[in-house]
Each structure stands twice: as structure tokens, then as C-alpha cells.
């Protein structure tokens, strides 16, 4: 229902369900245009770097709503399996997942991860009117990944130590050879 007066235009309506959310634009001829975005509270910080974990270990994925926004009624977690977002249900697989939600924060603990668990996870803050989504990426690697740089550093340390000790031994042997050469009996000359 709109009310037009000389200086303003008022559009009053009730938000009934999710379909009422979206962008509303108010146009004044071709002089001015104002866009209103009507939405449930959105999760601000989205972590762009993936969370890394190791095969057999557990990992904790977190989502946080800013505390200056209304508290979500509940939280849901989804896994993206290539085609759609599949809701993670703790009741179905209690030995694999554990969801603990408290106010503005939620944590998904994935136990005993394997490489199949890699991928995108979505957390949804459930409000009465709609759910706001945010995503976080999980990357599962094996212990071999950091082992490669570690072993190369190990090799470098061994080579350095060996080189230093060998250099010192050859240096002192050379000095002894020099001393014995020209002065066969150094004690007598003194």
C-alpha cells in the first residue's frame, strides 16, 4: 500500500515470509533512485583461506555472527557434495560429527577426517524469516605434505654439520703437516 504526498513516497507492508525479502527500489522520475535491501542478518567475516587438517585427526570449523546483530534462533551445517548442499545431521552419524551452537557462535567438529571430507561446508544462521549462509573450506592432507620440507631441512643440517667438521679436521691436519715439514723437531729449536 503506497501513500504519495508532495515530498515523499511511503510504501508500508508486512514481511510475511521469505518472498518479501529482496531489493526494493524507489524511483523519482529519472532524477533519483534509492535501493533498499531487505534481508536477514548476514554473516560478515568469511574466512577465505581453507582450514587444513590431517587424515585421522579431528577438525573444528567455526562460524560467528557479529554480536551487534540479532542472535540466530539456531544453526545448521551443510556439506557441499558437488551438486547440492546436504544438511549434516548429528543424529545420523554421531561418531563423525558434533555440532555445538551457542548464541552467536557455532562449531562443527568433524572427527577422524579422511580425504573425502575435503570441500566446502556451509553454516546457516536460522532466523524466523530466513537462513543466512556462510561457507568455510576444509582441506585434508596427509602427513607426507609437511614431511617433504622437513626432510629437506634435515638433509641440509646433516650436510652442514658434516662439512664443518670435515673442514676443521682437514684444516688441522694441514697445519700439522706444515709444522712437521720444515721443523722436524720443534722442541729442540726452542
Amino acid at each position: 500500500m503506497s501513500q504519495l504526498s508532495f515530498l515523499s513516497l511511503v510504501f508500508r507492508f508486512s514481511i510475511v515470509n521469505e518472498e518479501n525479502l529482496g531489493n526494493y527500489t524507489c524511483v523519482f522520475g529519472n532524477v533519483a533512485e534509492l535501493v533498499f535491501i531487505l534481508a536477514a542478518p548476514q554473516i560478515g567475516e568469511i574466512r577465505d583461506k581453507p582450514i587444513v587438517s590431517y587424515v585421522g585427526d579431528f577438525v573444528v570449523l567455526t562460524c560467528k555472527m557479529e554480536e551487534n546483530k540479532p542472535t540466530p534462533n539456531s544453526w545448521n551445517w551443510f556439506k557441499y557434495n558437488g551438486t547440492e548442499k546436504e544438511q549434516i545431521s548429528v543424529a545420523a552419524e554421531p561418531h563423525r560429527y558434533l555440532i555445538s551452537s551457542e548464541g552467536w557462535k557455532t562449531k562443527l567438529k568433524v572427527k577422524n577426517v579422511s580425504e573425502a571430507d575435503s570441500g566446502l561446508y556451509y553454516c546457516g544462521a536460522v532466523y524466523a524469516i530466513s537462513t543466512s549462509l556462510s561457507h568455510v573450506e576444509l582441506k585434508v592432507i596427509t602427513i607426507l605434505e609437511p614431511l617433504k620440507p622437513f626432510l629437506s631441512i634435515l638433509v641440509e643440517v646433516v650436510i652442514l654439520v658434516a662439512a664443518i667438521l670435515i673442514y676443521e679436521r682437514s684444516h688441522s691436519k694441514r697445519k700439522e703437516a706444515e709444522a712437521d715439514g720444515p721443523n722436524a723437531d720443534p722442541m729442540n729449536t726452542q
Partner: protein
Amino acid sequence: MTNSKLKSKSQGNGVESPDGGWGWVLVVAMFVSTSLVFGLMRSLGVFFVEFVQYFEENAQAISWISSIGLAAQQFFSPLGAALCNAYNTRPVVMTGGFLSGLGLILASQATCLVHLYLTMGVISGLGWGLVFTPMVATVMANFTHRRALAVGLGFSSIGLSSFAFNPLFQLLVETYAWRGALLILGGLSLNIMACGALIRPECRSKGPAKLDSQSRLPCSVMLQRVFSYLEVSLLCERPYLTYTLGVTLFNFGYFVPYFHLVAHSRHVGFSEYGAAFIMSAAGVTDIFGRIVSGWFSDLGHFRVIHLLILWTVLAGVFIMLLPVSSLMGSYSALMVISLLYGFCSGALTSMVFAVVPMIMGVERMMGGLGLLQLIESCGGLLGTPLSGWLRDNTGNYVASFMVAGSFVLLGSLTMTTLPHFFSCTDPPPPKRPVLIDNSDALRLELAQKNCCSSEMNHQAVEQTKR
């Protein structure tokens, strides 16, 4: 002939150490090993966020890890010094490097917080303790005229490596998670073994233990030897006690700005970014301060102890000025005072170590440094909680900074009571007291002669060649 005899005599006494040559290689070794000890310790903050999330503990429980590590490093310093006196420095430092790497490697497999306390805290801390004091003492023993500069250059690594390690550790954690990052850090720490390998074994006048390994010694003699390795006799000397007390008082106030400056700046109203920038800038002037003060003191215009008092008085004054400048509301004033404070605190660090051989002589430096580290750790451990308590009770940081500055000034006052303080030239360093009986003294001379005879021959040959 007389020339070579004189030179070999001075080598035996150990009063004049050769400057330069292999000494500079040791400075590089100290640079690398100190950065891998303290630079690493200072950059562990990157891991704490990960630990809090993984182990689901609060920040205080996690911060115990680095507290235990630092405490272990300081507590085991006398042990490291004693082992170097008993055996040679090289195996001790290499063992220390191995232990510090091992601690981090084991920490990568931790499944609970206690594992981290034991591995990253105790084992790595023990390793760091076996590395730091011997490394510093060795570098100082290898220099006489350029001692302060060498030490300053070696310590500059701490500031530089904190700059480099923070982004590096962040990258490692993002690529390999904290487990992989700790594993790689353990590997990096093993490089300390290479630094230790550069220390050449030398014959020193602490030979008795090496000779009498076969014969069984009575308990009292063993105890006497252990005490001599630990240089416990130093605790009975007034100059050493005065100096240690002064350094402990410094430690009460020295760390306060590093811990509380950022919080204080935010409290006064500056932005997060501005506060962090002040800390980084103070870190840069800290590096300059260490090198410049070392170079300046080696020029010889002033006595090292007078320069130490100069830098500590200035540092104490600047600490007290920090809250005053920020209360005026000016960011530039706070920045200037912080830069000056950074310079003075770096300058006094070099001087604190350079004065040590003057107090106790070069031969006892190893044990003396170890004991000094242990005793001064009390100041560091108590100073920061005290300032935190003051802040909680008064509501702002003014009282904490004032108290910290006054502790530093009190330490300077204590230093003025050192003997021969007001003279213009350095007094001769004290000799270590003779604790061994005559038969041991004779065997000592023989051992020295045998061990050093090859060295003396080389010196003789070189002399005759010239």
C-alpha cells in the same frame, strides 16, 4: 724465541683474546642460534589462536606454554654453563640444538595441552637453555676490543628474526596447519646444531675431571668440582651480587612496555593499527640500539659500566614519560618516546652482557652468565604480573609504567655501588679463587701443556717464519 714464549704464555692465561678471524664466524653462529631461540619464542603467538581453537582451552592456559618455555630456558642456563665448564662447549650446544628441535617435532604429535607443556615447554626450553648462555659466553671470550659490537650484532638477530618469523609462521600455519608447521619449525631449530659445530674445542683450565675419570673420587671433592663448574663461588662475591641485583631490578621494568604498550595505546584512544605500528617502530630502533651501542662502547671513550648506567637511566626516564606523552593525546609524542625507549632498551641489552667479563673475569664468564640468567628471571616473571595488577587496581597504565621506570632507575642506582665505579679506568678483572690442592695444580699444568703443545708449536713456527 722469547717472542714465541711470551705469546704462548698469554694464550695459556687467557687474558687477551684474539679479535676477529674465527670470532666473526662465531658471531654469525650466535646470530643464527639466538634468532632460532628468542626470535622463535617471540613469534609463537601465531600458534596460540590455533591452539585455542583446537584444544578448546582459554588463552591463559595456552599462554602457559611459552611461559614454561622461557622459564625452562632461564632455569637450565646454569646447567648449560656447568656442562660447558665440565666438557667442551661444542657438544653442549649441539645437544641443546637437538633437544630444542626434538621438543618441537614431538609437539607436532600432541593430543592434549599437557603434551605441549612438556614438549614445547620443558624439552625445547631445556634445549634453549643449553644453547643461549654457552653461545654468548663463547662469543665474548673470543673478543676483547670489539666485544660489545660482536655481542650487539649477535643480539640484533632477535629483533630482525621476529620481523621475519611472524609472516613466515603465519604462512606455515596456513599451508600445513599447526602440526605441520611445528614439525617444520623443529627441523629449522636443528640448524642450531650446525651453529654449535662451528665452535672450536679449546683447552681450558678446568681439566681435572677429564683426567680423573677412572679413579673414584670422594663425595666432597665431586661436590666441590660441581660447585666450581656452576661458579657458585661467585654468589659470595659482593660485586657479582650487586650486579645481579641491579640486572634483576632492570628485568622488573624492562618487559612492561613490550607487554602493555599496545593495550595502553588502545586504552588512550589510538587505533589498533596505530598501536601495533608503534611496537614495530620501537622494535626497529631496538635493533639499531644494540648495534650502535656496541660499536660506540668499543671505541673506548667511556667505560662500559658508565655507558650502561647512561642507557638504563635514559630507558627508565623514557618508560616513565610514555604515559605522560600519551595523556597529552598526541600520537607523535608517543611515537617519539617509544622510538627513544626502543633505542635505549636495545642499547642497554648489549651493555648488560658486555659488562659481565669486567665483573668476574673471562674465565668465570660461562658460569656467571648462567647464574645471572637464572636470578634475573625472577624479575621478568614478577614484573609483568605486578604491572597487570597495578593496572587492574588503578584503572589505567600510568601507575604500571611509573613503577616499571622506577625499578629500572633503582637498578641503575644499585649499579653505582659497584667497586671502582667512580674511577675513570677499568679495574683489573678478579681472578678465580684457587679451590684445588697442589697435586691437582701440577696435573693441571701438565694437561694444559700436553693439550696446548701442538697449538704452541704452530705459534712458534709462525713466529719463526716471521
